[in-house]
């Protein structure tokens, strides 16, 4: 086996030094009846070239990973995709991969020994600083698993801060984030109340929100831009929440929006999914969640934190700090059971934020807005209708007008185009034809025009059918 650095003679010599006759004797503590007497029934040992072939086949959408099958069925190239909904395709500068593939970053452990981990620690400190700057919060942790678990952990955190048990969550929050939150809060007896949105604006229904908050509400959780791409009125929601002593948690699924959309400074806690900053959509993970908040909530923050300090000679350096909140010290009394975070992905995010920087993040967000506006206009011209028209939005919007989202997407797929995400599964009130469309800086005019042409055909046919 090519990863194993021992010759047969090494093994024999080592067994002799240990003083046992065979390798089997080292496994004697495992009762014989439970020791495997045969090979595991898994694929045989593959060469590196065979491993590569196998995954090339998978990458070409062959379900078995069989290279023979690949040769017989060359893959069609997808022309365009308009999917977003919490997983966004943005350009990923090449240097991100060059840097994170350095073994010193890729193959290092959690920086518990700061003297030999200053690289990871300083980069995390820079990450924390940049996240604070973008979100308008005072402190940020060194990452959470992703946006969904970060949102759930934020609710738990708010309960610890306020001593209340309960949260009010907007229905405009990503449906899968809400599902995760339900799983996590259920067994801690934290009731979750959902509040709807105003049918015209696609924003949280403020009157319903006001009515839903009780003396036991620890936090109001919203997403902005929300799942429909609409920007919530964070200041108004904060006022309603704070008036009743609840905290406001703002979940942000599209980090690129922060280059154009006002930071949610009125929030107490921000839970950000930073995947857009240089991380591949990669079929849903790994991504990079992060929690940022007001400094006064520091002791209730979950996850790892990097702090500045000095060494014994007075040199500036960094350490993991405030670990008394964490499970390896507090055990069952910890703020969370989280241990591993997303350090390497957070590093990718840090490099992305550095590459674009102060100017670039603003220009990037503006390009996303321009593309989404063009796409929306093109689809409207094709005969589609859009929802929530008067409300400011970032780069996603809800399209209606088709009789069936499935039928429209099937037509688009014939042209190698993946259309918007069908919404009826989570929002049946929007109808069977409702879809969520997204354009980013990578979406081209040609792709958008092509999609609009297909849609025009669909609407024309539906019109004819109706007559």
């Amino acid at each position, binding site marked *: *086996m090519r990863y*194993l650095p021992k010759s047969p003679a090494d*093994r024999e010599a080592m067994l002799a030094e240990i003083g046992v006759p065979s390798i089997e004797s080292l496994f004697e503590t495992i009762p014989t009846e*439970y020791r495997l007497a045969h*090979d*595991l*029934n898994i*694929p*045989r*040992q*593959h060469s590196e070239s065979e491993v590569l072939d196998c995954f*090339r086949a*998978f*990458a070409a*959408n*062959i379900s*078995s990973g069989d290279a023979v099958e690949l040769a017989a069925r060359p893959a069609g190239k997808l022309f365009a*995709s308009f999917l977003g909904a919490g997983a966004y395709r943005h*350009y990923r500068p090449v240097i991100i991969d060059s*840097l994170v593939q350095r*073994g*010193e970053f890729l193959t290092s*452990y959690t*920086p518990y*020994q700061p*003297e*030999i981990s200053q690289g990871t620690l*300083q980069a995390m400190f*820079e990450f924390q600083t940049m996240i*604070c700057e973008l979100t308008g919060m005072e402190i940020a942790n060194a990452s959470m*698993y992703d946006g969904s678990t970060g949102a759930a952990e934020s609710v*738990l955190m708010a309960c610890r801060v306020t001593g209340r048990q309960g949260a009010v969550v907007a229905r405009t929050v990503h449906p*899968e984030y809400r599902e995760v939150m339900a799983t996590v809060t259920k*067994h801690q007896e934290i009731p979750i109340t959902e509040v709807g949105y105003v049918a015209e604006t696609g924003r949280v229904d403020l009157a319903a929100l006001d009515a839903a908050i009780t003396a036991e509400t620890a936090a109001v959780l919203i997403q902005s831009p929300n799942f429909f791409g609409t920007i919530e009125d964070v200041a108004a929601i904060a006022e309603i929440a704070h008036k009743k002593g609840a905290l406001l948690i703002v979940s942000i699924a599209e980090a690129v929006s922060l280059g154009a959309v*006002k930071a949610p400074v009125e929030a107490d806690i921000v839970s950000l999914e930073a995947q857009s900053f240089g991380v*591949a959509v*990669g*079929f*849903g*993970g*790994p991504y990079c969640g992060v929690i940022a908040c007001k400094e006064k909530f520091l002791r209730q923050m979950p996850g790892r934190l990097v702090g*500045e*300090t000095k*060494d014994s000679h007075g040199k*500036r350096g960094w350490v993991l*700090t405030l670990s008394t909140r964490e499970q390896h010290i507090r*055990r*069952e009394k910890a703020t969370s*059971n*989280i*241990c*591993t975070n997303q*350090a390497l992905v957070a*590093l990718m995010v840090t490099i992305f934020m550095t590459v674009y*920087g102060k100017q*670039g993040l*603003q220009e990037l967000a*503006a*390009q996303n807005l321009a593309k989404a*506006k063009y796409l929306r206009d093109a689809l409207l011209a094709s005969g589609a209708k859009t929802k929530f028209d008067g409300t400011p939005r970032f780069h996603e919007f809800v399209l209606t007008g088709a009789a069936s989202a499935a039928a429209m997407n099937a037509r688009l797929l014939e042209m190698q185009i993946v259309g918007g995400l069908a919404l009826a599964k989570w929002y049946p009130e929007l109808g069977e034809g409702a879809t969520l469309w997204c354009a980013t800086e990578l979406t081209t005019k040609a792709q958008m025009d092509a999609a609009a042409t297909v849609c025009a055909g669909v609407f024309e046919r539906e019109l004819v059918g109706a007559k």
Partner: protein
Amino acid sequence: MADTKFIGTPKKATTHVNQNEDLIFEKSSAGKKGYRLAQLDVPAVDVASLLGDAARTDDLGAMPELSEIEIIRHFTRLSTWNYAIDLGMYPLGSCTMKYNPRINEAVARLEGLAEAHPYQPESLSQGALGIMKMLSDCLVEITGMDTITLQPAAGAQGEFTGILLARAYHEANGNPRRKIIVPDSAHGTNPATAAICGYEVANLKSNELGMVDLAELERMVDDNVAALMLTNPSTIGVFESDIHKIADILHAKGALLYMDGANMNALVGKTRPGDFGADVMHLNLHKTFSTPHGGGGPGSGPVACKKILEPFLPSPVLKTNADGSLGLDYNRPQSVGRVRAWYGNFGMFIRALAYILANGPDGLRQTTEDAVLNANYIRAKLEGTFELPYKSRSLHEVVFSDKLQAKNGVKTGDMGKRLIDYGFHAYTVSFPMVVHGAMMIEPTESESREELDLLIDALKQIAREAEENPELVQTAPHTTRLQRLDETTAARKPILRWKAPVAATELTPDSAAKEW
């Protein structure tokens, strides 16, 4: 003159650029750029008029502005301050710091996988689902379980999912029960997990061998107990030989055996938890299956279980359609719910499967044997130099204590730091808690005999230093860029982000150098 020997060299003690890299913010200058956006092929928009009150009006404050070469140098310099497996051995017990094969990284970046959107139609996702299916089948076979979910994002989330499965199972039988038993030798995540699943934690004391005390367990297990969370081999690296009796005691009262798979690197290909009585377990793909630690993540924590727990798996579940194609089943009325958006850390599934394919059944077995051989070799060579509190046969790791050195005031933490001066990462310090002054060493299979001999020599030398010159060890490390860091002040007066200097004086190279 005292100064003469510095003629022709800078007067500052050190200005070594690589060693004194500033924070990125301190290197930033207004107007520099490390990017260029593609030419816009649609009409530009005015952000302020489009977004109105929602538009951002500040200038993003401290966000840095640098050119590409400066960014490359900054992060490359930072990287040189890290220790890493690629540089040498990590004898970190319980962490399984093995080689991270580069083919894993190559295949994870193939465009069809890296660019696959989680919501794209299933017809376009057959390759991605195929990876999940093949990995699931392999892990089910390796663990001897019946089924699996890949959704949990890391080990701790795997534990959470596993205990939720146990809870749902008991609820379906009429009563979720109240308690989870956790041995005192367990990882901190175990009791933390039990607590967030709404369970009381009952601590089980280990016996004099560091193992589960069967009589005590028998006394504790009643029909209020939902499960025992057991790490096997235990955190002292010893297989629980009475594992089937442990399972029997639990099962007799309707309780389940949860196995923490953190130490699975000792078992793969040699024995299967599903065969010896475990009902549910998590795996750490970033330990046993070679996905990189990356300075603390991402991990991935699949949960394998027996058929009785299958109805409760997180939604969605992978399914094979009638036509042989793969799909996702969301119709799971008894599911514990979702623990993470989408399907888990897919990028880690690719890497773990690449590792399994590269090994095959013979390679995985040899890997386990080498890991166990290495730990026992270290044990044989260092027993006597360090106290060995538990004499039971070690599998993949060995736990010594600092008892012999503590007489001279040298503690496990000191010796761990001193190991850094010899070019190694420290071993795991002060864990498991059942061993006072624990020195926990897990070499993994990735170390050659030559590398092991170097570690052994280093530790013997350190033991000698502890006798002859304790202060040398107590003040280690001495060869690193920074010496011991003041963690107390860091926690007492937390500085968690950089802030621009209050006075608007630009940092000059001189004022920046003063820091050092």
